[in-house]
C-alpha cells in the first residue's frame, strides 16, 4: 500500500490504465471506505464481455475540465473544487433527476435510489487534499489505478500520458490521465476502440504488428 505523502509542489496525478486491470475488486472494497462517502462504493468495475472474456476494467471519475455532468445538472449541484476535482452532488441541492448519470461520457455518476441522490467519485478529497493517494489507487495491485508524480510515473512505467478524449465530435480534457503507447496519435477516440475486439488477438500475434 502506497503511504507516500505528497506536498503541494509535487503535483501528483491520477493515472488510469484499464488494460492492466486483473479484476481483483480491491478498488471496489477500498472505495467504499473513502471518508467522503463511507459505505458506498462509487467505482465501477466493468466486465467487458462476460460471456467471452475474463477481462475487467475499473472506471473512476475522470474529472473533466468542463464537466458535462455539471452542465446538464438542473439543480446546479455539481461543483469543481479549486484543484479541478469534480465533486459529488451537493446533497441539499441534488434533486435526483439522473441527468448527470445519463450524460457523463465516461458513464461515471451513480444514482443512489435510497438516498435519492447522485453520488460519484471525488478522487478521495479527504485523502488527496492531504497528499495521500485515493483509496482505489492505494490498493490496486496491478497499477491500473495509480497515483503519484509524473516523474515517478516515467521512472517506473512504460507508456505516455494523455488527458484528451474524443466522443464523436466532442473533445473532452480530463484531470485524470490515461496511458497510451502512441501519444503522438493525439486524444483517445472512444468510438474507434470498437474496431478492434477485446480478445480477438490480445497480444497482436496474428498480424505481426507487435
Amino acid at each position, binding site marked *: 500500500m502506497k503511504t507516500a505523502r505528497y506536498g503541494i509542489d509535487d503535483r501528483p496525478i491520477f493515472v*488510469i490504465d*484499464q*488494460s*492492466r486491470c486483473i479484476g481483483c475488486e480491491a478498488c471496489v472494497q477500498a472505495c467504499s471506505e*473513502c*471518508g*467522503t462517502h463511507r459505505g458506498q462504493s462509487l467505482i*465501477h468495475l*466493468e466486465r*467487458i*464481455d462476460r460471456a467471452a472474456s475474463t*477481462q475487467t476494467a475499473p472506471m473512476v471519475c475522470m474529472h473533466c475540465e468542463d464537466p*458535462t455532468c455539471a*452542465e*446538464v*445538472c*438542473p*439543480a*446546479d449541484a455539481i461543483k469543481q473544487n479549486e484543484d479541478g476535482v469534480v*465533486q*459529488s452532488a451537493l446533497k441539499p*441541492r441534488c*434533486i435526483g*433527476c*439522473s*441527468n448527470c448519470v*445519463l*450524460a*457523463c461520457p*465516461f*458513464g461515471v455518476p451513480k444514482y443512489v435510489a*435510497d*438516498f*435519492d441522490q447522485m453520488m460519484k467519485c*471525488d478522487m478521495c*478529497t*479527504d485523502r488527496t*487534499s492531504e497528499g495521500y493517494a485515493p483509496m482505489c489507487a492505494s490498493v490496486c495491485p496491478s497499477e491500473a489505478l495509480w497515483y503519484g508524480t509524473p516523474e515517478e510515473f516515467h521512472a517506473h512505467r512504460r*507508456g505516455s500520458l494523455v488527458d484528451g*478524449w474524443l*466522443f*464523436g*465530435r*466532442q473533445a473532452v480534457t480530463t484531470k485524470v490521465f*490515461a*496511458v497510451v*503507447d*502512441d501519444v503522438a*496519435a493525439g486524444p483517445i*477516440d*472512444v*468510438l*474507434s*476502440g*470498437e474496431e478492434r475486439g*477485446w480478445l480477438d*488477438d*490480445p*497480444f*497482436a500475434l496474428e498480424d505481426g504488428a507487435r
Partner: protein
Amino acid sequence: MASVTSSVDRRGVTWGLVAVAVVVALTFIGSDRLVWFDAALVGYLFGVVFAVFGVVYRYAVWLRRPPTAMLNKRGWDAFKARKARNAAALPALVGTHVLGQTFIYRRSKTRWLAHQLVFWGCVLAALITFPLTLGLLHFQSVGQQADRYQVYVSRVGTAQFDAGTVIGWVIFHGLDIAAVLALAGVFIFLRRRLNDPGALAVERGGDFLVLAGLFAVSVTGLFLTVSSMWLDGQFYSALNTLHALTVILGLMYLPFGKLFHIFQRPGNLGVAYYKTANAEGPQAVCRRCGDGFASAQQIADLQEVLPQMGFDYGTADDGSYQDTCPRCRRASVTLAQSARVGGFG
C-alpha cells in the same frame, strides 16, 4: 457600470419587484392599512423584503438555465398529463420528500434527526414571525383581564386563551421552542462537521456559516426570554438589537448561500412526476448493446439541452454518442484506451 447593468437579469428583477409589491400589498391590506403593523418590527420587514426580492430573482434566473427550464417544463407536463392521479399522489409526496425527508433518514438517522430539528424549528419560527412582521397577526388582551388574550388575524378576532395555561405558555414561547429545536439540530450537525474527516474535506464555506447563523439567531432570541423572565429586562434593548441584526442578516443571506436549497429542493417533486411518466413511456435503446437503458423522453430532452450548453456528441454516422448506455460507455472507453496500448496485460 455598463458591465454591472448588463449582468443583471431584467426578467429576474421584474419578478423580484412583483414579489416585493405583493409582500408590501399584503402587509398594507393584512395589517388593516398599517393599523396593526408593529413599527418595532420594521427592520425585520426590510429583511423580509430583501430576502423575497433576492430569492425570487435567483429562482427566476435559475429556472432559465437550459437543463432547469427543461426539467421545469417536463415536470409540469408530466403532472398535467394525469392531473387527477398526480394530485392524489401529491400529499404523500410532500409528506416524504418535503416534510418527512425520508431520503435523509436512509442516509443517516442522526443527520435526519438533525435536519428535522432544524427544519421544524425554522418552519415554526417562520410561521410565527412572518405574520407578526407583516402585521397579519397580533394579540390583544380581552377586556380588563390582563392574563387573557385573543389572537387577531388582521382585524378579525379568533381564539382566546389564558396566558397562564399550557396553551398560553406554548403560544408565548413558540419562538423559544423553535430556537431550542434549531439549536439541538445545529449541535448535531456541528459535531459531525467537526469530527468527520470526510465531511471536513468537502466542507464549503457556507456549511459552517449557516450553522453559525442559526446558532446566533437562536441564542440571541433565547437571551431575550432570559432577560425578560429572569433579569428584570436588563440588557433587553441591546439584546433586541443584536437579535434583530442576526435575523436580518440571516434573511439577507437566504438568496445567496446554502439555504437557497429550501426553495430549490422542492423541485424534487417535479422530478418524481417526470420519472413516473418516463417509466411508463418508451425506453431508449443503447446504440452499442441494444438494451433499453433509460427513458427515451429523458434522453431526447438531454440531447436538446446538451447543444445549448455547448456540447456536440454527434457521431460520424449521424447518431449521437449520448445514445450509448452508461455501461457501454465504460466499455468503449476501456476498449479505446486498451487499443492504444496494444491490448490488455
